[in-house]
């Protein structure tokens, strides 16, 4: 059985799982920020549960608690999602590149906490390796 081909599409085509999910996210300086753990989708009217009657678009990359539920099942409360708005995304290749610095994003709070409370306080922690 051969299926009819899809029409030629007017934009870059990405399969979510193949090209986006679990990809490394890098900030504008090339520093790793997180991986894409999930994507958030809204209808054009802002609806949280869109269906085929309206166009739906990806509004944010998600990271953090959604990883645990992708591994173990279930659905995390939306309060525990860390969002990176799609407007920050500058390019999608083998990695997802952002146009902003990672430090300004919510999702890096653990990195900043560990740096400020632990690693940065140890002698030599803020110097280049010698």
């Amino acid at each position, binding site marked *: 059985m051969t299926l009819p081909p899809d029409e030629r599409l007017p934009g870059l085509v990405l399969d979510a799982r193949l090209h986006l999910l679990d990809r490394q996210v890098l900030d504008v300086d090339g*520093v790793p920020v997180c991986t894409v753990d999930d994507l958030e989708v809204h209808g054009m009217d802002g609806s949280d549960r869109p269906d085929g009657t309206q166009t739906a678009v990806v509004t944010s990359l998600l990271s953090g608690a959604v990883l645990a539920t992708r591994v173990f099942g279930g659905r995390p409360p939306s309060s525990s999602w860390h969002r990176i708005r799609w407007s920050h995304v500058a390019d999608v290749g083998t990695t997802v590149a952002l146009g902003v610095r990672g430090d300004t994003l919510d999702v890096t709070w653990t990195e900043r906490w560990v740096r400020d409370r632990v690693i940065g306080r140890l002698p030599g*922690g*803020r110097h280049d390796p010698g």
Partner: protein
Amino acid sequence: MKRVLGVALGILTAIGGFLDIGDMVTNAVVGSRFGLSLAWVVVVGVIGICLFASMSGRVAAVSGRATFEIIRERLGPRAAGANLTASFLINLLTLTAEVGGIALALQLASSVEPRLWIPVAALALWLVVWRAKFSIMENVTGLVGLTLVVFAVAVFLLGPDWNELADQALSPTVPAAEGHAVYWYYAIALFGAAMTPYEVFFFSSGAVEERWTVKDLAQSRMNVLVGFPLGGILSVAIAACAAIVFLPAGIEVSSLSQIVLPVALAGGKLALAVVIVGIVAATFGAALETSLSSGYTLAQFMGWSWGKFRRPAQAARFHLTMIVCILVAGAVLMTSVDPIKITEFSVVFSAIALPLTYLPILIVANDPEYMGEHVNGRATNALALVYLVIIVTASVAAIPLMIATGAGS
């Protein structure tokens, strides 16, 4: 000189990966029980790790992506998470064994109880991970570890019956005193010791640390083709030393101190001093590789910032992971567990977890989106598929054999 130092990553990876405490002990045990009749496994293992490391090195050089990022991306969070759990635990087990190995080697030099050396070894390890440049670390440990060549020299000095050794190696038979299951159990242990996943995590992450690009592909290949066969030759030399001295005397190897006796017999105090330096360097190198690998795997899975080329504060969670792992390893050893026992388990578990690491690399090495024109050739893929079968077989057979033989006893 630059060319010589250019293969340092390969040599460190191979010295630390092939001649870590697990490999030295497994090879000596096998030599004392089976002679060289399992030497063919080392050959199979060397070809396998060359293939595997060259693919992951090529992926790292071309795409800039290290192995565990790719595992996560291709296998998805569930299978990759299972792989992470297994790899991380095996890694921690191996790190523990290596720190114990450093202490045992220092005991040989000083006769001071290993428990007193463990905190010293752990602290030294952390200081290197924390402060030393990657290139200095790999060059120093790699070059000092090369002193293990003394094992190969010792084989010649011992003046063995070459015909007999060749006969054991070329027409392998299971010795009368050993069962078939035990023979195959040790075959898998040797294979696992040669193809430990942490070598690949370390090698591919090291390639990213050194910022290899497409231009460095030749160098990457050189690293693999020099480092791993060298490691393989030295593993066989260790087995040969044990086969020459211990097999006829009915002595079974169970400790690190026995491994150096054939070298002392062959070359006296000087050779002994050299081999102890080599063992300290190799176990230290392996401890560095495993502590870094624990950071690499977790950070790459989670997408954290990682790498020794960054300041520790710029890769805070990566460094915290390593600190915690080194502390855990030290704490476990202070309970007086035998590092040699730990190492025997860690090599077999390595063989079990291998397919989940091997398959994603094989697939990505074929993906033009990552590799462009540098995808695997036909010959590489043919060999890679043969190894896929071997790796899956070894992985499936490992646990039943382990149970049936009481872990080779």
